[in-house]
């Protein structure tokens, strides 16, 4: 193994991705709070943006995040059927099904953008999902598709 690859490997080991997380106010944000109250530990990779509903998340927010150099994106809402706004998460689900295909077409690795559901009662689940998302993004490495702006 050359010195260079060794160094690269070391960087990869230490490297922590930066993931932006859009959480709906009523379920997932509350679930994230519950993870805190219950002191369930997860990697410090996410930065949370609170939105009223996963339906609020415009696909452009996700594209813009990737363009700005975030290594990963998480969008989390209420479980289907439980939306505080009746159908917002269903609208979101349909929208993101299409976006996922578009992103693949762009050449963005599928694991960079993760959609998930976590209820206000699921602190443990929230932490698990973040661990999972972190692992996936970490394996993909830094987001090099777009030039970082900072």
């Amino acid at each position, binding site marked *: 193994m050359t010195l260079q690859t060794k160094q690269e490997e070391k960087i990869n080991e230490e490297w922590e991705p930066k993931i932006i997380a859009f959480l709906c106010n009523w379920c997932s944000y509350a679930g994230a709070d519950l993870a805190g109250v219950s002191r369930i530990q997860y990697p410090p990779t996410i930065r*949370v943006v609170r*939105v*009223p509903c996963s339906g609020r*998340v415009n696909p452009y927010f996700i594209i*813009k995040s990737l363009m*700005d150099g975030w290594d990963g994106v998480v969008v989390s809402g209420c479980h289907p059927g439980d939306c505080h706004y009746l159908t917002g998460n269903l*609208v979101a689900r349909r*929208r993101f099904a299409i976006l996922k295909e578009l992103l693949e077409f762009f050449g963005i690795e599928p694991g960079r953008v993760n959609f998930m559901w976590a209820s206000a009662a699921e602190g*443990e689940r929230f932490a698990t999902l973040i661990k999972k998302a972190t692992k996936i993004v970490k394996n993909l490495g830094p987001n090099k598709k777009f030039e970082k*702006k900072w």
Partner: protein
Amino acid sequence: MEKVGAVMVIGAGIGGSQASLDLADSGYKVYLIESSTSIGGVMAQLDKTFPTNDCAMCIVSPKLVETGRHQNIDLSINCKILDVSGEAGNFNIKVLKKTLYINPEKCTGCGVCGQECPVEAIDIFNEGLAKYAATSVKYPQAVPLVYAINKDYCIGCGICQGVCKAKAVEYDREDEEVDINVGAIILAPGFDEYIPPEANLYGYGKYKNVVTSIEFERILSASGPYAGRVLRPSDGDIPEKLAFLQCIGSRDYTGNGQPYCSSVCCMYTAKEAVIAHEHMHQIKPTIFSMDVRAYGKDFDKYIIRAQEEYGVQYIRSRISSIKEVPETKDLRIKYETEDGKVMEEDFNMVVLAVGLNPPNDNVFLAEKFGIELNEFGFAKTDKFNPVQTSRSGIYACGAFSSPKDIPDTVTQASAAAGCVNQLLYEKRGTLITEKTLPPEIYVNGQPPRIGVFICHCGINIGGYVDVPDVTKYATTLPNVVMADRNLYTCSADTQTIIKDKVKEFHLNRVIVASCTPRTHEPLFQETIREAGLNRYLFQMANIRDQCSWVHMNEPEKATEKAKDLVRMAVNKAREIEPIERIKLPVTPKALVVGGGISGMVAALNFASQEFETFLVEKQEELGGFARHIYHTLEGGDVQEFLTDLIKKVQSNKFIHAYTDAEIENIDGYIGNFKSSVIHGKKKERTEFEHGVVIVATGAKEYHPKEYLYGNNGNVILQSEFEEMLNNDKATNKKSVVMIQCVGSRNDEHPYCSKMCCAEAIKNALLAKEKNPDLEITVLFRDIRTYGFKEKYYREAREKGVIFLQYDEDNPPEVIPEDSRLRIEVSTPRKEKIYINSDLLVLSAGIYANREENEDLAKMLKVPLNDDNFFLEAHVKLRPVDFATEGVFVAGLAHCPKTIEDSIAQANAAVSRACTILSKDEIEAEGKTAMVIPERCTGCGMCVENCAYSAIELIDDRRFGRVAQINQALCKGCGACSGNCRCAAIDVLGFSGEQIFAMITGRC
């Protein structure tokens, strides 16, 4: 004596909280008195709720926070009632406020004292399954979040006093006695669960793996002793074979338990079985039951789902013995199957579905408040008004008057508040405080001047995140003119500091980096509003719940994350602008659709508070369904009650009753509806305005096609039989057979009609009374005489009424024989029984008026359920509200129910409506969507996506076809904006610019 515009509510469970909120929102001062140290009662202990599997904590906690901080609810915990005097309209109550040894005004609920406390005390909340410190809150989300020292365990070491940075620990704090003057009292002390006595048949207390259902509820809970994993207490193994035993302490005539049915156990057992399987798929639950009493709305569907989707097995049997297998700690259950075989089976764990007893202090409460108890020790209530106790001015709600579930409790809580409204309406608004606020500082167009307050939260944040470093970093960010750090940003003194800094630095944006906006945003918003800033010029960075608490082992990375979160908040703050809350005027008039009992009770309640009411009935006569009912099972004279009600409605000058009437149109929204009615023989048209709508359109009796009904004169309906009996036309009969569940609980109508069992037993008892020699046989699937109705079921059996079970797949056959009928039944023991009968009485189900309901639902923009009954806003906590504000539901239009329940629901709907009608104008949340018309192409995608029908396409003079938002209907979810391809819709408070600012600009 002069009436007083204040109300005392005893007990701060979900019932007491709901009653308090209704009353405080309708202009009364409320004193909420709780005997334990936090509010929420039993519901806060539950993991999930049936029939939706909704998380109990998530749905109850916002209600509790609202109760805790409402400026007209005076909440006192750890209290005892000393004395009650006075009369309806003016009571004096002496209350003892027992000390917590911690000053609730200073305590911030940070929890450091609890962590440092060296002595462990049993924690009540986890039902003895986990241990906590002597200084404790009942649970992490407790309201009020104040710690209490348990003196029984405290050793007085003083550590907690030393570590408390807020100086809230006061060992010498004493009890306090206060006198409270109110106009009415609502009793909502709840229930106590049945605890099996020491030497019980089920080995509870002796065998470790036998637990009660409420203990099992804590085992299921994520905040419970095993963090949501289903494990058995003896060894922490997963109980793959899990047995539930029903009716523990209920329907028990042996003297060990209570003779009545506890009403809720069948459903909560099904729920616990489903959740256990959901948590751990290897668990196979078995439920041993007598009758499965799933009588409520959508309950039967839940039972079917439990069996079909979750593999829950039901065995109809009361077990004969239970023994522990010493080697495995498994439990060997002996039982007899339906076809008479004796079986023995081992289970890993057994859950006892314990019944509901009256609260342990029922006699004390009855004596203090001077009210009567019934034969079972519950509060005795009026035959027709289930919240009226034996003493005028004192009302009871929830499980204190009979065992009941959460929606019934919430309904009764609102109903009690509705009755208080009737009593005290003249004094509304006399004792409440309204806040006076300074005028808002004009900030539009000014460069942002941001102030950042970073919280140490004791050691909760400061112990893991380098707060001074984050503060220093904050000052380097553009537009930040000051950054400060505080020990507790939420404490009263910091609020003063924030207000001073706003003035000193001319701040026009404020950021607090601390805990979660879900609990604390309103507090800080109120603070900056008091300082003269618009309350939306505020942002929060969550650096505790979502940072310091979840990265406790990585302080450096946590600090880095906290900096990022603060920067994102600053970036957003730069873009935020003041938002006006929308004010809507209110027309203080009501429309009640339907002139049955529910509709008339509601109309009379409104009218007695001098609200003009329009009552619309499609029939020529008032009275509805109840016109064909003579008595209730409990002996109430329905006809007398109804006649009296109609007379009162017709003579009341505040009620305009339209009969033979049809609603032509309903337009508008909360506070401002406009409707038109076509009524009378001449089809006159009347138009009127109103602020609220109550839907009480009732339902109809099923007209059976089965069992020769309509073809044979000897086959009649239960309602026809009742008429015969009351007119003495059935005296010549020798044998009568009744068939239950005709048109209910089948594929087409998969719900229980709730009242048929009680009706059948009522008629059977009356027939027996008139002719004791009459042979009566009732063919049933499950007898659902829930609650105290069980008493009459027993009485009927004692009087010789024969009850025979039949199976859904094997219904009875009716063969006409001369002038009689021959009825064949297959029993569960696979025997065929033949009965010769003079008369066959069918218990026909209750059906929704489908077409009528559909029309009305469309006009009101409210939903129907699969069975065409109206669907409420939330099946547990908003049982009379619709998601559409200003519209409420009562009576059979909601689902099949008894007359008493309909009356309670009608009064509840009035109470909910009064929270609107009592105000001149109402404020709606300002965070709504708005259209940028120059960008809008009028494609209509937003109209499609809006769940609230708040968007329509209009033809604008300048921009052509564009979307327009009705701000009164918009809830601000943003589904429209998320979908807008032209970025022509934005959501105030969560605008695209603001979110982009958070995503970008990592300077």
